[in-house]
C-alpha cells in the first residue's frame, strides 16, 4: 500500500518523534561523554519537564489569550522556565547522587542512577497521581497542506524547537569557552584539570544543559501528545538511550542522528509492518548495534565525544 503522501506524512511523524528522542538522547550522550555514566534518571527528567510545564501553564493566565504572537511568547517563556527547572534538577542530581561516586567502581553510580530514577518517578506519582494528566492545548493546531501532504502546527512546533535546540547546543559546544572545557574534560579529565579547568563546574554544566534539553522535550511532548504521565520517561528514556547508542554514545552529532533515525524507523514500522512491531524493531536495532557495532554509527570520532 505504497503512496507518496502517506510516506511523506510518516516521515513528518518520524522527524517529530525523532526530534524529541534526539533532545533526550543528547543528555544521555553528553553525560556519558564526560563521566562515562549512563544516567538512567534522565528519562524521568524529561517527564519532569512536562510536569513543570503543566505547573507553569497553570500559573499563567492563558485562558483568554488568542493573539498569535502572545501565544508564541508564552510558549517560549514556558520552554525556558521548564528547561531552567529541569537543568537545576539535573545539577542537584549530579551534586547529591553522582559526584561522590565519581571515582567509585562503575556499577555504583549506575545503580544510583536507577535509584534516582525511581525516586523521581515516585515523586511525580505523588505529585500528579497514577493517571495520565491532560496537557493544555493552548496553541492553535491548524492543518496545512503542501502538495497534498498534510501536517499541523504542532508538528511544525516540535520540529522547529528541537532543531533550534540542537543548533544552539552545537554552537555552544564548539564555539564557546565552556564548550571547549567540556570537550577537554571529556577527552582527559586529569589533563584538563592540570590545565586549569574546573572539573566540578564543567560537569555540573553538562548536567544542566543535558537536563534542560530534556525539559524542552518534556514541554513539546505535552503539546504533541496532549497528555503526560509519570512513567512516560521510562519508555522514552529507553528509546532515546537506543538512539544515543545507535549514533555512538558520547557523540553529540550521533545522538541527534540516532534520535531522528529511531523516530523515522518507528513511524515506517507502524506504516509498513504494523503498529505492534514498532518496539520490537527499535530494540532489535539496539541489540544489533551492541553486538555488531558497539561504537555506534559515528562512534569512530571518539576524540570529539562530549
Amino acid at each position, binding site marked *: *500500500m505504497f503512496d507518496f*503522501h*502517506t510516506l511523506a*506524512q*510518516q516521515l513528518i*511523524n*518520524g522527524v*517529530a*518523534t525523532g526530534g524529541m528522542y534526539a533532545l533526550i538522547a543528547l543528555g544521555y550522550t553528553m553525560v556519558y561523554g564526560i563521566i562515562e555514566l*549512563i544516567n*538512567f534518571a534522565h528519562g524521568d527528567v524529561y517527564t519532569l519537564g512536562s510536569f513543570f510545564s503543566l505547573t507553569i501553564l497553570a500559573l499563567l493566565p492563558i485562558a483568554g489569550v488568542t493573539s498569535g504572537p502572545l501565544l508564541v511568547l508564552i510558549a517560549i517563556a514556558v520552554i525556558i522556565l521548564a528547561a531552567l527547572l529541569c537543568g537545576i534538577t539535573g545539577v542537584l542530581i549530579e551534586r547529591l547522587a553522582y559526584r561522590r561516586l565519581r571515582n567509585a567502581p*562503575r*556499577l555504583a553510580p*549506575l*545503580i544510583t*542512577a*536507577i535509584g534516582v*530514577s*525511581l525516586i523521581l*518517578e*515516585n515523586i511525580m*506519582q505523588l505529585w500528579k*497521581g*497514577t*493517571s*495520565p494528566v*491532560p496537557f493544555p*492545548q493552548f496553541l492553535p*493546531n491548524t492543518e496545512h497542506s503542501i502538495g497534498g501532504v*498534510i501536517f*499541523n*502546527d*504542532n508538528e511544525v512546533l516540535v520540529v522547529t524547537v528541537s532543531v533550534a535546540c540542537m543548533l544552539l547546543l552545537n554552537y555552544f559546544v564548539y564555539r564557546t569557552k565552556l564548550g571547549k572545557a567540556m570537550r577537554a574534560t571529556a577527552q582527559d579529565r586529569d589533563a584538563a584539570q592540570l590545565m586549569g579547568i574546573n572539573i566540578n563546574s564543567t560537569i555540573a554544566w553538562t548536567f544542566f544543559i543535558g537536563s534542560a534539553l530534556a525539559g524542552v522535550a518534556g514541554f513539546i511532548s505535552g503539546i*504533541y*501528545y*496532549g*497528555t503526560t*504521565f509519570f*512513567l*512516560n520517561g*521510562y*519508555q522514552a528514556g*529507553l528509546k532515546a*538511550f537506543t538512539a544515543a*547508542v545507535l549514533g555512538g*554514545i558520547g557523540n553529540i552529532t550521533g545522538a541527534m542522528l540516532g534520535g531522528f533515525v529511531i523516530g523515522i524507523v*518507528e*513511524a515506517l514500522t*507502524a*506504516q509498513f509492518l*504494523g*503498529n*505492534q512491531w*514498532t*518496539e520490537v524493531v527499535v530494540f532489535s536495532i*539496539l541489540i544489533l548495534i*551492541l*553486538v555488531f557495532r*558497539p*561504537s555506534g554509527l559515528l562512534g569512530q570520532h571518539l576524540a570529539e565525544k562530549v
Partner: protein
Amino acid sequence: MQRSIRARLASCIAVASMFSIGLSGCTGSGGGGGPASGNVIKIGSDLPVSGADASDGIPTQNGVQLAVKVANEQHMIPGFTIQADSLDDAVNGVHNPPQGQKNVQALASDPAVLGIVGPFNSNVAQAEIPTSNALGIALVAPSTTNPTLTKGPEALELRRSNPNEITFFRVCATDDVQGPVGADYAAKMLHLKRAYVVDDNETYGKGIADQWAARFIADGGTVVAHQHLTPGQTDFHALLTDAGAANPDVVFYGGTSATGGDQLRKQMAGSPLASVTMFGGDGIRNDEFLKIAGSMANQVYATVASVNAAKLPAAQAFLKEYQDTYHVPVGSYSAAGYVAAMVIIKAAGEAVKANGGKMPSRADVLDQIRKAPKFDTIIGSFSFDASGDPTSKIISIYEAKSDVWDFLTQVKFGT
C-alpha cells in the same frame, strides 16, 4: 567496552523492572471497617482502583461496599457481621494480572473471606481463575467479558486444578454478544461502512475487536485494517496517519481507556480523522475517557455488557442509596458490583442457614451459588449456567457527549 555497555543495560533493565513491580504493588485498603470480632464474614474485592482504571474500579468497588452496608442493615446473614475487604490490582495506574493473582491469594489467606468480587479486567481474570480454582474460593466478576474465561478449551486450562469445579462466575454479558451488538449498531443504525480496527492486544481488547470486526463484515461493512497497540503506547501519530490513508468512517477500539483508548481519540484531533466516528466496548465507557479525550469526546459510541440501572424500577432504591452515600454518578458496573457482592452474600446466608447458624465453609458457599435456581437482583433475575455465565445477558449502548455518556438503547438476550 562492548561487554560493559551490554551488561550494564541488561542489569539496569532487570533491576528497574524488578523495582517498578515491587514498589507500587500492594495498596490495598480495608473497607467496611470495624474490628473482626466474633462472627464476621468478609466479602473480598479485587478491582483496579487507582490510576487511569480508577474511574472504572472505584464506582464498582463502591457498589460492593454498598451491598455490604445494605446487607448489614437488613441482617441478611443473621448472627454475622459482614465486612468488605477491598484490594487494588492496578500497578502504576494500570490493571495488572500478577497483582490481581497476589490479591486473590492474600484474600484467600483470611478464613473469614467467603467469596471475592472481581476482577474487572479479563486478563486479570486469566491470572486469578487458576488460583481461585485451586483454593476453592468463589470469584464473582462484575465486568470481565471475554468468553474464553468460562467456555471452551482455554477455560478448561484455566481451571486445570479441579476441572469440574466452577469457582468463577460473572454477572455481565460476554463479548461474543457485546461485540456483535456493537457492530450491528454501527452498521445498521449509524450506517457506517469502513472500519479501521485497533486493539490493545490484551485478552479483552483483542477478543472484543475480533468479535466486532467479524460481525461488522457479516453486516456488509469493510474492515480496512486491524492494528494492535504496544503496552504503554503514548504516540499514535504514525498509526493515525496509516488510518487516515485507509479512509475509514469509523475507528473501532478494543481495549480500555487505561491501555490507550482515550489518548488515541485525543490525538485524532489535528489529523485527517478528526471528524471520524469512534466505536468501542465497555473499556472506554468511563469518565477517564471523557477527561483525557476532552473536546474529542464526541461522536464516540460504546457498548456496556450490563443493564443501565437507571432504567430499572428495581434499581431505583440502589441508585438513591448510592447517590446519598458517594455523591457521584454510578459507573458502568456499579450495579454489577453491587449484584456480584449480593450473590456471594445471599449464597453465604443460605450456607449459614444450612449449617445451623454456624460459619459455613467456602465449598458450601460455592455450592449455594451453583445450585441457586434464581438470584433476584436489582438488575433482574438470573442464575448461573454450568460454566458460570449468567443466564440473562443485556448490552446497553452509550454515546459520548463531551462530559457525559448518554444512554441510547439496550438489547436483551436469554431469559
